[in-house]
């Protein structure tokens, strides 16, 4: 479904990604783990078009999407929940969800998806008019995910959905990620919480200073000595 081939992305002169390769098949949950500054966020930003790679290409459903502006990549079916959630704080919860469906005109289906989002995230119900900036961290994460689902994505990019959340909420978020996946959305999950991510995903990649250093089934990575030492704190 998604193929990333040898992408190198720079911030000015600083090379953040070195020929990153990865593949996501339809229906999977794939996770990309790595420590601070490894280049996880940069990888997602390059896929969704906010950054342009100096080399390499990204293909999605058979089409090359490198160089396509982000607002068109969304329309092709990739939705990105950015690091730090990035909800629109001065807009209401409902307006945030409406923005998620910005590129769509099918009013009926939008309404259906809105119901689906409130079903997936019952905590958001009844707060349609609340300013999104006043929601709790967990609620903001749910809103950011709900907003991303409003574009009816085929592939969902999640950047550290567990960041800064209490263990209980993290568990809940991961359950929801599995549920979204069961309902047919493919997921590329970036996490520092390697434990949770590898338990949830089918396949995993390990990124170190801009390079993919390991890739395997998630269950195998959980057993891998290097991974256990570096990322699972053992």
């Amino acid at each position: 479904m998604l193929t990333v081939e040898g992408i190198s992305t720079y911030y000015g002169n600083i090379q953040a990604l070195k020929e990153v390769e990865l593949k996501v098949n339809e229906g999977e949950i794939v996770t990309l783990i790595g420590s601070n500054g490894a280049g996880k966020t940069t990888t997602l930003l390059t896929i969704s078009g906010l950054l342009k790679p100096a080399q390499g290409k990204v293909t999605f459903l058979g089409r090359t999407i490198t160089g396509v502006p982000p607002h068109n990549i969304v329309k092709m079916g990739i939705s990105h929940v950015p690091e730090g959630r990035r909800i629109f704080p001065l807009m209401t919860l409902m307006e945030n969800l409406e923005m998620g469906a910005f590129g769509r005109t099918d009013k009926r289906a939008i309404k259906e998806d809105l119901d689906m989002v409130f079903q997936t995230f019952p905590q958001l119900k009844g707060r349609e008019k609340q300013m999104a900036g006043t929601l709790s961290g967990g609620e903001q994460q749910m809103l950011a995910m709900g907003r991303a689902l409003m574009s009816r994505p085929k592939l969902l990019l999640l950047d550290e959905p567990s960041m800064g959340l209490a263990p209980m909420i993290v568990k809940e978020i991961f359950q929801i990620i599995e549920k979204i996946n069961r309902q047919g959305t493919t997921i590329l999950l970036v996490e520092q919480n390697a434990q949770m991510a590898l338990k949830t995903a089918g396949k995993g990649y390990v990124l170190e200073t801009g390079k993919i250093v390991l890739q395997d089934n998630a269950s195998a990575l959980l057993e891998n000595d290097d991974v256990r030492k570096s990322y699972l704190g053992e």
Partner: protein
Amino acid sequence: MFIQQLVNGIILGSIYSLIALGYTMVYGIIMLINFAHGEIYMFGAFAGMILVVFYNVPFFLAFLLAMAFAGLVGLTVEYLAYRPLRRSSRLAALISAIGASIFLQNLALLIMGARPYTFPSPFIPKVYQTSFLTISKLELIILAISFLLMFALTFFIQKTKIGKAMRAAAQDMDTASLMGINVNLIISITFLVGSALGAAAGVMVGIYFRTVTPMMGLMPGLKGFVAAVLGGIGRIPGAMLGGLLLGVAEVMAAAYISSQYRDAAAFAILILVLFFKPTGLMGSFMQEKV
């Protein structure tokens, strides 16, 4: 006396509000003080005058065409002078804005010459009088148009899909583009709308003083900017409030202190705001931006 001054202040202020909106909308989305805004106001006034005087276009049609024309000028300025510098330093963009302002002013001088043009009022000079208030028909029309435009803008920003996208882009441009919003298009629309409002102010000032000149944008441009800062730059309701307050303050200063203090009042306010509450009355956008 006081009520009369208050009403005069509100009339003047509603003009400042319209101008301030252009500054604040642009600042809200790209964090740039559009120094060419005063010139766009002047272009609007000229367009209106030329259509009415030279082509006998009915006033209200000329008014709308002037707004559209200035809107296109604003959009072009953004495209040529600001867009290429989008990822450069803010200083570079600011210098480009000053350049655009000088360019537009000289363009007007080149085409129209330095002499003032008469812009006759299309309304019969009628004055309504009560015991405590004298107001002309023209003043009433200016008030009505200004408030109508402000209500229309508020509706547009709050309720329409494009308006919401403008707010989203102002809060977080990258994330807005992840929603499928074409941010460049939204920026163009912002310039179009802000410039059109500036032109509306220009045309109304033109008929009020019956004059348009290439230099007419200087002072109102500055005052509009002060009003935007006073209200909290980047905040649309702030620009409306800031404009009205500035207008009232100016008229009061002229009436109760000395008419020479009219302009000084604006700049005194600017200094006070920058000193005591740089985020303006409604809180600037910057603060809330993470």
